């Protein structure tokens, strides 16, 4: 069943689950992106780094109780569907918050290696989600330590949303980029998503900094334009996206200052 009337919407909002969270301020670079769940402790804990690429990485689905570093809610019952119905965001610095459903991730990649294989399939590949989870997936990368003093362009070799292999996505890290700073890959022209990843190559090698790949679907974007001025987005403002009860929500924060600020937020899950 889906929400299809105003009465159903009102009823769902009135009984929605409220998931409050708090992330203490952490050091950032102005304008940069950070995978909050992994980069810093939050009220919902810290998400563990995924398994190595050589072991197939980690496929994500919500567990009960939720794993450390994730927000969990009671799954919809009676054939109902879960929706994101509201987001409230407050921070002591201006911050943009992008909420994702984390599908798959891997660690164990190193700037020391010019070519590294991802053993996709020896893990669990893409998780089960309604529809095709990879069709609009985004690929991100962040280092778990400071990047070496060299500009390195990463190339991810992948199979796209339609099953076409041999596609290339690129991401560039600038010299000495700080730990946990995330960069999004640019997919090959015409592609919208990823079914699987085969390998990662580099145009240069330097040092031995490890980095992590994230494959995820964007759920909602929230823009907080001024420090200390909170944002409320209602069902229309968030677009009432369907959220799988198996979703593992990960936040990417783009900060407007050298610190993230204390972030107090809340998301509402309405079901109907």
């Amino acid at each position, binding site marked *: 069943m889906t929400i299809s009337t105003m009465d159903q919407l*009102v009823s769902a909002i009135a009984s929605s689950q409220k998931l409050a969270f*708090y992330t203490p301020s952490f050091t950032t670079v102005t304008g940069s992106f950070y995978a909050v769940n992994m980069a810093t402790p939050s009220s919902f*804990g810290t998400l563990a780094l995924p398994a190595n690429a050589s072991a197939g990485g980690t496929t994500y689905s919500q567990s009960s109780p939720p794993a450390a570093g994730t927000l969990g809610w009671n799954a919809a019952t009676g054939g109902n569907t879960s929706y994101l119905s509201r987001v409230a965001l407050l921070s002591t610095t201006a911050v943009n918050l992008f909420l994702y459903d984390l599908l798959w991730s891997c660690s164990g990649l190193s700037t020391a290696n010019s070519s590294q294989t991802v053993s996709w399939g020896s893990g669990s590949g893409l998780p089960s989600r309604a529809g095709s989870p990879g069709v609009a997936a985004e690929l991100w990368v962040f280092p778990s330590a400071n990047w070496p003093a060299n500009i390195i362009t990463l190339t991810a070799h992948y199979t796209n949303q339609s099953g076409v292999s041999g596609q290339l996505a690129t991401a560039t890290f600038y010299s000495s980029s700080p730990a946990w700073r995330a960069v999004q890959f640019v997919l090959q022209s015409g592609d919208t998503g990823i079914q699987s990843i085969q390998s990662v190559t580099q145009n240069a090698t330097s040092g031995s900094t490890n980095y992590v790949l994230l494959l995820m679907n964007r759920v909602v974007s929230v823009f907080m334009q001024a*420090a200390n001025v909170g944002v409320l*987005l209602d069902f229309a403002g968030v677009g009432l996206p369907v959220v799988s009860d198996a979703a593992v929500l990960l936040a990417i924060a783009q900060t407007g200052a050298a610190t993230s600020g204390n972030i107090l937020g809340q998301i509402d899950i309405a079901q109907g």
Partner: protein
Amino acid sequence: MAITSLASLKAAISRSQRFCLLPVSTTALTGGVTMTTSFVATVFGTLATPAVAGSGGTSYSQSGSGNGYPAWNAAPAGQVSYIHRGINQYAIGGTGILYDLLWGCSGFVTNTTTSAQTVSSTTLPSRNGSAVNAANEMWLFVGTTIGVTQTNVQISYTNQSGTAGRTATATLAASAAASRIYPCLLQSGDTGVQSVQSVTFQTLTGTDGAVSLLLMNRIAHLPGSPAVNYLAVSDFASSGLPQVADQAVILPVFLPYSSSGTSGPGCAFEIIQG
């Protein structure tokens, strides 16, 4: 019963109980630092400072008007109370969050010892007959200004599942002023607090400030007010219709936009029932 249709929502709104928390005192503001004036003065009176940690603190439940929080008529049998329509009004801008104050204890000193200061017991109230330890938040409230030295704080507690020996952390800024309130970070994996065992200030602050520990449930985010005297309003959709227990003791936490001015922040909200 709960609100399940647009018609029932409209009927509930037509009977709403309205409360306006205007400031009655001037309080120096610190931009970007959360604060509450409930323990200083409100139009509803002054919230009593909780009892000291050595006597088990104070459990809070609504007990009529004039006690530092708004009191509303309880929902009729079978109905539920909701927060509807929050209004944020600042003299200088900012935003706020409405909390339900569950329990607090006072008497912690910040420049006398770096040893654990014991909390003798924690008695959490119930809300609508249910326990409140599943998703509560821990905050540190500054009653009198601490010294010029910042201090990290560790709080030993028992989590929502009854697991003891957990540690929450917080930082009190140097010269943290009175009426400031600081959130604590629970240990990874925890979502709430059943009881608190001790509080430890890891660095002496230079001057003894009076600090209280509060356990609260988050109820509703208020809309942001981006400019001087700018009213910001949320409706049923943007407020999300959070349910609020009729025993709730509303404590607003405000985040000032800047340090300019001394006028206290204010807000308003409506209680609807259906």
